[in-house]
């Protein structure tokens, strides 16, 4: 457990919650990232979705300058570049079919006690644990 970082986990989580709260209290829009990507790719999407995604990228650029270790990139993945792209496809497809991801179900839905979000969160967590366990056994 020497990697356990409770202080930054709580602070970062609180900031994520605040960011999503700022959006929904001001505009009534949900900061579910997979849903925003979906909406942004549709014709005549309102500007706020692209603005939110631009904010995410701008935040990433800022972190790369002030705290580069926080955004190490995905080049170190054991999957290799094509494997990472495939993981992206599976994540995007699954999250949209399931109606949300770690933000939409995990934070926004759970925080209003939406039964669908609770079930989705338990399901994707369990699937994530199982996938890593299978990969671990395959790699010996």
């Amino acid at each position, binding site marked *: *457990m020497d*990697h356990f970082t*409770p202080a*930054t986990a*709580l602070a*970062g*989580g*609180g900031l*994520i*919650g*605040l*960011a999503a*709260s*700022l*959006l*929904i209290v001001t*505009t*009534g829009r949900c*900061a579910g990232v997979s849903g925003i*990507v979906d909406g942004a*790719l549709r014709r005549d999407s309102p*500007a706020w979705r692209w603005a*939110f*995604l*631009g*904010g*995410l*990228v*701008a*935040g*990433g*650029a800022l*972190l790369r300058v002030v705290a580069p270790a*926080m955004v190490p*990139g*995905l080049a170190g*993945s054991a*999957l290799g570049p094509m*494997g990472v792209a495939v*993981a*992206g*496809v*599976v*994540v*995007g497809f*699954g*999250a949209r079919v*399931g109606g949300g991801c770690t933000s939409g179900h995990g*934070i926004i839905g759970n*925080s209003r006690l*939406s039964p*669908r979000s609770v079930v989705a969160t338990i399901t994707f967590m369990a*699937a*994530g*644990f*199982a*996938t*890593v*366990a299978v990969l*671990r056994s395959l790699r010996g």
Partner: protein
Amino acid sequence: MAERATVEAATAFGAGLLFAIGLGIAGMTDPAKVLGFLDLGGDWDPSLLLVMGAAVPVHAVAWWILRRRGGPLLGGPVPRRPAPVFDARLLGGSALFGIGWGLAGVCPGPGVVSAVTGGSGLLYVGGLALGVAASRLVAKPPALEEREPDLGVPADTAIAPSA
């Protein structure tokens, strides 16, 4: 006064920026950290439970404010909750999402943030967009509840009609 769409976009940009910084501080943009959480069989790192454990109660306050006000600051109704339908889409889609998350240690938010690193970061976002687009073959928006269920909102608080 600026048009609603402009204020909405400016707010969304600021929210996205804060969201990314929160993800970075929390460790969500480091795939090794995420995989350390998902690897129950190894030197398990429970930190990411605390990320959700902090974000959820903060956002619960946002729902409480929305219900008390009867809607967002820019006007409009409180977003309605999906009706509790537990179908193959919800379960299968969420399971697939979890598998993809476990493969790379990257969920959509951190993926978009990592696009700035180029290379594999851009490949992930390209894959994400492709998967999202492909989901339209089988996905459909969930039905919404007729009205917001009572979650402890005072009786004298008006709930905006969800027209």
